[in-house]
């Protein structure tokens, strides 16, 4: 205990220098907490926007669907999907299941036409599944109607607004082209720009009639929350095997999410390494100065019987205390800054590449990550002190005492 007391007094012997050194650690820890909080929130947002923007937590397909030839349209449909839904709902983690059929087609206003990527689904499920999309005009379609939702980009291309009647054309199961008049019930703005320019969501029955099919090509399973979604994965794998289906998790489908995550992780790592570098130089400099200023003291302590190891540990303890105190203040300040930013409504982030709109980012640092960074900071302080501490420990006693 006295060693800690001595170390604390020693580090504040030259208060200004120690505070400046701690300042670099404090600023580093604040930066780490905030960047981590920003990335954490952004990644959560991206993940949920992809999951709740249409891909769900899991997707079930007829076996062979994913490897099918492009020209075999609607050859792999799940016909008995209504019966299967009941079984899937048995899993405690499942929130809802959205049966969907997807198709490509052309939407025409008479004057202008555009290619769409359409999907037919049930109103209630589609509303929940696309909860990260924003209805900018109108409302969601009714199930037994000829109403559709179109992306904001699609509406812009066709100069369409709610209430307009458009013609939807798509290839049928048996070949040939079918066309149907649809009414724009709502205009939706999806998070991803590309979806916005191509998306059309129609009632399931309308899509089935248009395509001349009875089934769906996927069942989208949405769990209560993403963190616990994996709990139902095992059940769904067994279920899919039993029913001749294939299962894909959101992790297989959200490739973009993992690409962005990798990019953010790399950026975070670079920032972390830079901060670590600053801390190493700062601590090494402070500890070297400490050693030089205390040479005669080191000599005396060695004369009194301190072993080299004790000197080494004393300096490393002092350095680690700078890291512990500085890092702790940094974590507290980092969380304070994050809370203040969140209370003020977050930080506005302009639309990232490929995204339709900007957003207000909250700063939600991940406690485990911040804790690990804090421990890494302390470890870095200890490592940075090894060289000067070894120098102190290896000093010849007689030489050191003569410096007094």
């Amino acid at each position, binding site marked *: 205990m006295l060693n800690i007391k*001595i170390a604390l*007094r020693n580090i504040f012997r030259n208060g200004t220098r120690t505070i400046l050194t701690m300042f670099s650690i404090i600023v580093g820890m604040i930066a780490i907490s905030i960047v981590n909080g920003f990335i954490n929130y952004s990644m959560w947002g991206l993940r949920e926007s992809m999951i709740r923007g249409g891909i769900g937590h899991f997707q079930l397909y007829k076996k062979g669907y994913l490897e099918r030839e492009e020209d075999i349209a609607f050859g792999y449909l799940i016909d008995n999907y209504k019966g299967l839904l009941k079984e899937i709902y048995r899993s405690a983690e499942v929130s809802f299941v959205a049966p969907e059929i997807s198709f490509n087609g052309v939407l025409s206003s008479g004057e202008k036409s555009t290619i769409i990527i359409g999907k037919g689904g049930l109103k209630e499920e589609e509303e929940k599944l696309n909860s990260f999309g924003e209805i900018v005009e109108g409302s969601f379609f009714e199930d037994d109607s000829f109403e559709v939702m179109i992306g904001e980009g699609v509406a812009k291309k066709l100069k369409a607004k709610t209430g307009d009647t458009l013609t939807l054309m798509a290839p049928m199961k048996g070949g040939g082209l079918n066309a149907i008049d649809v009414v724009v019930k709502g205009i939706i703005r999806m998070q991803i720009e590309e979806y916005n320019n191509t998306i059309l969501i129609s009632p399931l029955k309308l899509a089935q009639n248009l395509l001349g099919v009875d089934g769906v090509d996927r069942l989208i399973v949405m769990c209560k929350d993403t963190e616990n979604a994996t709990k139902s994965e095992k059940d769904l794998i067994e279920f899919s095997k039993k029913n001749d289906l294939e299962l894909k998790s959101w992790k297989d489908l959200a490739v973009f999410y993992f690409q962005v995550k990798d990019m953010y992780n790399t950026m975070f790592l670079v920032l972390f390494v830079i901060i670590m570098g600053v801390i190493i130089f700062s601590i090494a400099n402070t500890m070297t100065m400490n050693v030089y200023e205390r040479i005669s003291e080191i000599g005396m302590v*060695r004369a*009194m019987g301190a072993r080299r190891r004790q000197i080494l540990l004393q300096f490393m303890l002092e350095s680690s205390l700078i890291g512990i105190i500085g890092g702790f203040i940094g974590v507290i300040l980092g969380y304070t800054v994050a809370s203040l930013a969140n209370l003020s409504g977050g930080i506005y982030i302009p639309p990232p590449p490929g995204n339709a709109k900007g957003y207000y980012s909250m700063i939600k640092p991940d406690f485990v990550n911040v804790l690990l960074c804090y421990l890494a900071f302390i470890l870095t302080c200890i490592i940075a002190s090894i060289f000067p501490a070894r120098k102190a420990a290896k000093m010849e006693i*007689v030489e050191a*005492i003569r410096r007094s």
Partner: protein
Amino acid sequence: MAIIKTKNVEKFYKLGKTSLLALKNVSLEFERGDIACIMGPSGAGKSTLLHLLGCLDKPTKGEIFINGANVMEMNDDELSLFRNSYIGFIFQSFNLIPVLNVYENVEYPLIIGKKKRDKEKILELIEAVGLANHIKHKPDELSGGQRQRVAIARALVTEPEVVLADEPTANLDSKTGEMILNLLLKLNEEKNTTFIFSTHSEAIAKQSKKIIHLLDGEVKEIVYA
């Protein structure tokens, strides 16, 4: 049996490509309770001899026995332990730890040696050196004489067999120097501790039972009181 014995001790210092002879063929014996004084002009080798006797350095040649143990055979850790248990040091410039108060400075050698920290004993020593009212004072709040008294209490706290004092009164005025010397003589009388001084001070020499005169690294004369 002599508490300290040196046999044909020599010490060379390397200065670039040449080497400097600091001590030559020094053979000495010190008995328990001795008050010995090493005298000589600057550069005679007084401090070098004191450092060797205190196991702070090793001789280039020869042997040193303390309490029967050959210090030449000890490694660095063993020497550290040995110093902590058997030897106390008092230096000209006091060398107190500035961040510790009087009590903690005296206590520190016990912490280093992981020894029992007897509060009563520490306070007794502080009282013996006349600093009972300054326990909480830091070194920079004390006068030179008071600092040297803290250094004396610190040197004695581990109850060493030998106390080595390098010019202990050199930085003090004559009155304070005399007071410090009297204190050391009193402690020698009470505890039978061996005191070896390296000094120019005639006052210290007068009180010594044995005076060793060094010149150019050699023992020129030993005078017994």
